[in-house]
């Protein structure tokens, strides 16, 4: 019997997120011929993103478009999504492992009494069985898991599964009415979008990261300039966050975020095991450090021994020339 896959897509800063296209690809990798892949999108003023999304799925695009849904709120989103999912009876639900996906998926899993495999980085088919790879101990090891039975819910880690290509024919768009939950217990008072216009750390293809070596909040300036030239994001080690040079939201490591960009540039980071756990799966690692003995050099593809305050501006200049 053919199965129904539903990808819960996501919009951030008015853009359809890359990880949502990766989630569609994850559904494709899991599905058999004849299975249907649909998408579900919530938010406000979504017409552009909906038509974009419809090019990637052959099934339907289900839309909940309402001012109340402009910002993610667990209670609102969950109560809006559940009736739609109940009518679609999906075999599998796929989300990005994002702030929204991490919060919403376990609520849906609990509601449907389903299993969930979080933070999936790869999907393999072994005969009729699907195996999902995910990091444990922040990437110090990897496990392969399978579903025993019941509905499948997975969240996919950004940047690991390639984004879906456009499907042959655009999916049909189905609008759903939104009804506010009766007993709403949570309300959003305020949202401060700090990351506005910036590249999201988890999804960035290039990450420029600073450690204690940046010496101050001001010391992140040259890193920000380099990230801007590269269209990348700025990250930090725990040392830099603990010292108060930057916000914990930027922290990469075993506590903090795990990133897997194409290029990771570690500036003034010595390379504690907790930090390496959060970035060692990056494709290319570049280390800049004054101390030639810093452990970061043992795992870096390229190392520059030198003061980051000299090296980073030089690199920014060279990249600017190369990318011009």
């Amino acid at each position, binding site marked *: 019997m053919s199965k129904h896959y539903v990808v819960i897509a996501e919009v951030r800063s008015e853009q359809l997120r890359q990880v949502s296209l990766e989630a569609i690809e994850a559904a494709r990798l899991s599905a058999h011929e004849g299975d249907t892949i649909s998408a579900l999108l919530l938010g406000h003023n979504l017409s552009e993103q909906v038509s974009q999304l419809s090019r990637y799925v052959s099934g339907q695009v289900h839309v909940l478009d309402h001012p109340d849904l402009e910002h993610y709120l*667990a*209670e609102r989103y*969950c109560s809006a999504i559940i009736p739609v999912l109940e009518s679609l009876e999906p075999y599998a639900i796929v989300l990005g492992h*994002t702030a*929204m996906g991490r919060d919403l998926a*376990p*609520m849906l*899993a*609990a509601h449907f*009494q*389903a*299993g*969930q*495999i*979080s*933070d999936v980085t790869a999907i393999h088919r072994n005969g009729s069985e699907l195996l999902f790879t995910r990091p444990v*101990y*922040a990437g110090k090891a*990897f*496990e*392969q*898991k*399978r579903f*025993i039975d019941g509905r499948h819910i997975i969240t996919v880690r950004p940047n690991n599964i390639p984004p879906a290509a456009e499907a042959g024919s655009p999916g049909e768009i189905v609008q759903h009415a939104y009804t506010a939950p009766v007993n709403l*217990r*949570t*309300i*959003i*008072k305020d*949202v*401060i979008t*700090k990351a506005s216009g910036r590249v999201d*750390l988890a999804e960035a293809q290039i990450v420029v990261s600073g450690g204690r070596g940046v010496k101050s909040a001001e010391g992140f300036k040259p890193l920000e300039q380099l990230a801007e030239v590269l269209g990348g994001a700025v990250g930090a080690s725990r040392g830099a*966050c603990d010292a108060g040079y930057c916000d*914990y*939201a930027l922290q990469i490591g075993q*506590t903090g975020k795990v990133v897997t960009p194409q*290029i990771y540039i570690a500036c003034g980071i010595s390379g504690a*095991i*907790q930090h390496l*756990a959060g970035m*060692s799966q990056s*494709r*290319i*690692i570049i280390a800049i450090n004054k101390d*030639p003995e810093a452990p970061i*050099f*043992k*795992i*870096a*593809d*390229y*190392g*520059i021994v*030198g003061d980051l305050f000299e*090296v980073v501006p030089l*690199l920014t*200049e*060279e990249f600017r020339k*190369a990318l011009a």
Partner: protein
Amino acid sequence: MNIFVLLKQTFDTEEKIVIQGGEISEDGVKFIINPYDEYAVEEALRLKELHGGQVTVISIGPPRSAEALRTALAMGADEAVLISDERIPADEYSLSVVLAAYLYKVTADVVLGGNFSVDQGSGQVAVRLAQLLNLPHVSSVTKLDIADGKAKVLRDAEGDAETIEVALPALFTAQQGLNEPRYPSLPGIMKAKKKPFHQLGLSELGLSDAEIAPRTERISLSLPPQRQAGQILQGELKEQAAQLVSLLRSEDKAI
């Protein structure tokens, strides 16, 4: 105020991971309170100091998890509950059902947990539990103020800061930045020995194996491929910068 804290004992984050016989070896490993759960314990103690009440720490895990609970008691928690039973599967569905079976029977004003555990890192159990208990929740909180039966919290959503108000009872998961956990004091350690410590199994919770049947299982474990040290560039810094950009372009095709 009746506060419950979900706590997991995890590997010290400095530990290297060794796989032996298809399992992660625990030989000589130092165990700690999951760092995010430690923020949850600290926040519970602060709430108690401000509003009065009782803090109960709960863990599911092997008998060694008692050490982590004792540490939380020494920090100032009032009571500990260890649910230890070899029949409890490591699946998040099962774990949340077990915790719910315990928490159904109590009257919680606030349930606190970590944002995720640094070992399994799935971040599911606390949020699943909120749903099972029909409690509103806010995950990844960096500030928590309670007044008049309501909580006003700051939530970290990928760098965005959201202010959310929620009616109690409610569940919260702690994110870094929420607080600075205290160390257990010597008098705290002495007092902890006399505090109530309950150990339960599945039968005390009235759960059958079928009710907690796992939905997922681990098939295999592996270590990531070892990274080799690459190339330390040489020459004037300006030349090194130019060389690096050219290597990324021609060798790695990365820009």
